[in-house]
């Protein structure tokens, strides 16, 4: 059976054109690969580990990690992961004293509202600058934790 090469060539042409268009467009608009604000890429570049809900729950149950809420104070008071502390990104300088005597190798899990917010990433980077070496980001954040009815506190 002879297979025509034309559809394969056409498919390759479409894929190559899509790649050229995609990379060209994101380069010109400074998005995706070429964005400095792509949270996933920034976290990857900073060697910050992004953890899933399951992993976050494991850390919670083993009590190995300290959860840090990077949202505004009022959001924290309306509900947060049980046992977490609040270090609102917008008031980092006044809240950082809460880090107190926490060892630099302690596992810190930073979260914000959910997948759409960036404050957990920015706070995690600030913590890295303070030489905390085990900083992780729980990108699912408060929304994912709450949706699964995991332990929460209201204050």
């Amino acid at each position: 059976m002879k297979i025509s090469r034309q559809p394969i060539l056409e498919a390759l042409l479409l894929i190559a054109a899509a790649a050229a268009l995609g990379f060209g467009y994101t380069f010109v608009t400074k998005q995706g690969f070429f964005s400095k604000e792509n949270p996933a890429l920034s976290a990857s570049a900073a060697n910050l580990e992004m953890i899933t809900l399951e992993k976050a729950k494991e850390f919670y149950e083993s009590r190995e990690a300290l959860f840090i809420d990077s949202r505004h104070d009022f959001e924290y008071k309306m509900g947060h992961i049980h046992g977490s502390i609040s270090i609102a990104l917008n008031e980092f300088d006044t809240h950082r004293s809460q880090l107190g005597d926490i060892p630099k190798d302690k596992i810190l899990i930073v979260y914000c509202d959910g997948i759409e917010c960036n404050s957990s990433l920015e706070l995690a980077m600030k913590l890295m600058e303070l030489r905390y070496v085990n900083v992780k980001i729980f990108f699912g954040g408060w929304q994912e934790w709450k949706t699964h009815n995991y332990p929460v506190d209201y204050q």
Partner: protein
Amino acid sequence: MKSVLTNPILMFLVRISLGGIFVISSLDKLADPGAFTMSILNYKIVGTLLATTTATILPSLELLCGLSLILGLYPRTSTLLITLMLIVFTVFVISALLRGLDISCGCFSQDPDVNKIGYSKILENIGMILMGVWLICVNNYGIALIRFFPQKNNIPGDLKK
């Protein structure tokens, strides 16, 4: 029945619909590749690098295949690619549902609260896959720009006449 299934006007309408859906679905992804990257990561199947690469290329591929299908340029190849994409999307949705993920599908909007995945999404995709398979099998795309391009082989169905 066979004449209905191979009716050139019907095939043309199916082609325009499928192509139009892909063009529309590409627009929101093109507008915000960062949000689309996060939508892909939400499925927890691929890593950051592959998700970002996919978010860079996939919207353009959807746009080109959609336009190609609407204009009738390489209709069979673009239908094949669209059908393959739909099969992959459906596998992602089924996998996410089986793992109990409550996420937005990221298909037409990157808003995390819009268009959540569910069994209706699978049925919707299966419907489009059937449209694609139908076009490929009948190999008749109605009015197509391809007739204005020199072709040695592979001129779809009725366009040879």
